[in-house]
């Protein structure tokens, strides 16, 4: 996560803890020195797109289209191909929009940056799917023994003991399929047309000293390399390539019959360099500027999101809501690390009260409470939207308040024994008090029974009570929001 210069820039603009993103400096430096090397070799989404391209390449209809030269038009100009320059315009506009959004206080970078896309795919799709598949295979008759043995090894180590929720999978999978589907418009479609990090690295690397060149003494201008380039970065005759597009993948090198491809400046002395610099800059100013304006205007404002629902519960250590929405890059790391899987990316507008807050983390106690001896979410948050708290601080931080629904709570409504909420309350002096009460049941009878009450000054809203309340459906004790700022409990 901290490798992405785009996230670093977004966090810096939003006033978050950008210093933690120092690894992004290495990636940016690699771009300045060697263009989109990261895109070609390190980016996990790039790798997935490559795999997707290979898969799409097996589809006969698509192969025929590629053979007909559908994607690129040969140009006779020695300059970089004009079509290539146009293809990255949307990406640059997206870059501008995302940076503008960060500047006005909404961290949307995480929706479109490849690092969060990769992390979310693993956390919300791959791991829960593997979890579910393992469990289903374990229930199979006759052959279930092998998956069950694997499960025993893996639970508590790679997979948690409790099953992972699949609720976040549909939107993440849809986004991933959309990203891979862009390759229908051309190979490495996402990387070339939309990825804002790619646009940023391309911009930084437009004059990179390490770039793809062809030794003019060897190159015969045969052009065999041109259609092979997944980034369509090579100019029509094969001699020059646009550094802002080239992924340094080496496909051209592999196919060149004269072994003419060179990367280092000294190795290709005298080689013509594609004059992309003014073009790339002009594109950046034009489309990037358009993106900035669109982003500044169209970004849903934090103010709207702040009128949040009563069920919006931020993790302990979260900044106050306005700053949180700015600094949170919606990367999904906190949700991935939460041991109870209670911290979930907000998928419903009903939970968060605004489009701007979609995909920010919120506690869903019915899925999992906030584990008392854990402060991991603050440790992994790359931008400091969730601040680091010591365990003692976290255990006093109020993230919500428990409220008992006496019409459904077993002792209050039915005169039945139950103390599960009090049992699970982790605060040392207990935020739930049991008192013998005379209750009038729903049926009209009177009973004396131990019934719970919430002590408001002690409750920190961790939600363990809600998680384990044995009432069917919605729990009889629920956590409600305490407003835009977290306080400290008295208990």
């Amino acid at each position, binding site marked *: 996560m901290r490798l992405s210069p785009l996230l670093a820039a977004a966090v810096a603009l939003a006033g978050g803890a950008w210093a933690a993103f120092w690894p992004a400096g290495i990636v940016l430096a690699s771009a300045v020195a060697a263009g989109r090397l990261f895109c070609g070799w390190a980016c996990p989404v790039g790798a997935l797109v490559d795999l997707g391209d290979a898969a799409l390449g097996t589809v006969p209809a698509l192969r025929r289209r590629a053979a007909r030269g559908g994607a690129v038009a040969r140009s006779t100009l020695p300059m970089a191909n004009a079509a290539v320059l146009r293809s990255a315009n949307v990406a640059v506009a997206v870059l501008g929009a995302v940076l503008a959004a960060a500047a006005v206080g909404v961290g949307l970078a995480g929706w479109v940056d490849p690092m969060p896309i990769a992390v979310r795919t693993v956390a919300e799709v791959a791991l829960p799917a593997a979890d579910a598949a393992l469990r289903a295979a374990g229930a199979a008759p006759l052959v279930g023994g092998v998956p069950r043995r694997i*499960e025993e090894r893996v639970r*508590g180590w790679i997979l948690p*003991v409790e*099953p992972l929720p699949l609720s976040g999978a549909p939107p993440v999978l849809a986004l991933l399929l959309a990203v891979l589907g862009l390759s229908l418009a051309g190979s490495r479609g996402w990387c070339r047309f939309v990825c804002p990090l790619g646009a940023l690295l391309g911009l930084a690397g437009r004059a990179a000293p390490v770039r793809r060149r062809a030794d003019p003494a060897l190159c015969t201008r045969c052009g065999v390399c041109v259609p092979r380039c997944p980034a369509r970065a090579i100019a029509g005759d094969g001699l020059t390539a646009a550094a802002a597009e080239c992924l340094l993948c080496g496909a051209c090198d592999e196919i060149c019959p004269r072994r003419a491809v060179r990367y280092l400046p000294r190795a290709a002395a005298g080689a013509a360099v594609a004059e992309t610099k003014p073009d790339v800059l002009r594109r950046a100013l034009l489309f990037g500027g358009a993106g900035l304006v669109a982003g500044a205007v169209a970004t849903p404002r934090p103010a709207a999101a702040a009128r949040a629902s009563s069920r919006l519960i931020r993790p302990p250590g979260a900044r106050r809501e306005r700053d949180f929405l700015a600094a949170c890059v919606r990367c999904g790391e906190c949700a991935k690390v939460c041991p109870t899987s209670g911290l979930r990316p907000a998928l419903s507008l009903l939970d968060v009260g605004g489009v701007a807050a979609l995909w920010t983390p919120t506690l869903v106690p019915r899925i999992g409470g906030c*584990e008392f*001896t854990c402060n991991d979410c603050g440790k992994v948050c790359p931008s400091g939207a969730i601040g680091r708290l010591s365990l003692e601080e976290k255990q006093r931080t109020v993230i919500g308040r428990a409220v008992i629904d006496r019409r459904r709570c077993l002792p209050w409504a039915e005169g039945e024994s*139950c103390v*599960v909420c009090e*049992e699970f309350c982790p605060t*040392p002096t207990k935020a739930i008090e049991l008192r013998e009460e005379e209750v009038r049941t729903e049926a009209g009878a009177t009973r004396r029974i131990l019934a719970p009450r919430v002590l408001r000054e002690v409750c920190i809203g961790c939600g363990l009570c809600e998680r384990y309340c044995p009432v069917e459906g919605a729990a009889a004790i629920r956590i409600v929001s305490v407003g835009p700022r977290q306080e400290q409990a008295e208990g």
Partner: protein
Amino acid sequence: MSIDRRRFLALAGAALAGAALPACGRAPGDSPARSAPRAAREGLKRAIAVARGGDAAARVRAALESLGGLGRIVRRGETVLVKPNIAWARTPEQAANTSPEVVEAVVRLALEAGAGRVIVLDNPCNDARRSYQLSGIAEAAARAGAEVPFLNSASFDEVRMPEGAPFPSWKIARTALEADVIVNVPIAKHHSLARATLGVKNLMGLLGGSRGEWHRRLPEATLALQSLLKPAVTILDAGRVLMAHGPQGGRVEDVREVGAIAASADAFAIEAFGAEILGARPEEVPLLRLARERGLATDEGIERVETRL
């Protein structure tokens, strides 16, 4: 495509075989292990052994020796389930789980008595990884030579509960059903509903499903579980005792150093002893009251053998 009789019969046979596959799974109560209540294992002296003083490991040894030693109930090569309390993500000083030293001592004694395998596990209330680790039990038990697995949703079998139980069946950990000997190693604690949680309540750690339901009929349900699983011996950790805000606790101020271990094949003798430690009269503990009504526990109790180290 025409179909002849031979092909039709082959297809029909394959379809029927495929449809029959799901039926090869397990039905409730069909566990390969015991679905009927386990037989009690005799061999230990009919007494409750109480050891005080010294360190926890020494107390455990002394108490079990007073009863004749684990060798009386463990046959060579058998699988022993040592069931401590690992319910909460709490440290040993907070006395919410069994002390790791006590668990370690029991594991060593079981292996010395000739056990082929010793398994230590629980189904914690908090996050299982944290509970196993913070309690110190996973490390101590593994060091002594036990297997310390986690339980997951596939670890349980639906088992018929005994006659008169509040629930007709419930999911029980397969390890408990298949083990030859169950050694129950609870810690003495205050409990907000049950007043005291000792050996019988500790068996709830072998349950799957939505255990919260049990609180509606806690004494009846836990008694039924005890009669189903019949641990061969109950070893009560009364070294550090959680006197208030149980069963989870959290404040060291609620913990009292009592420095005792009690062991007996009679689980209800342990319940009576534990109630005494927690300052509760027998009639204040619903489980003990019910056990006496049903004739499972007597007022006078059994012989007590005290050892001071």
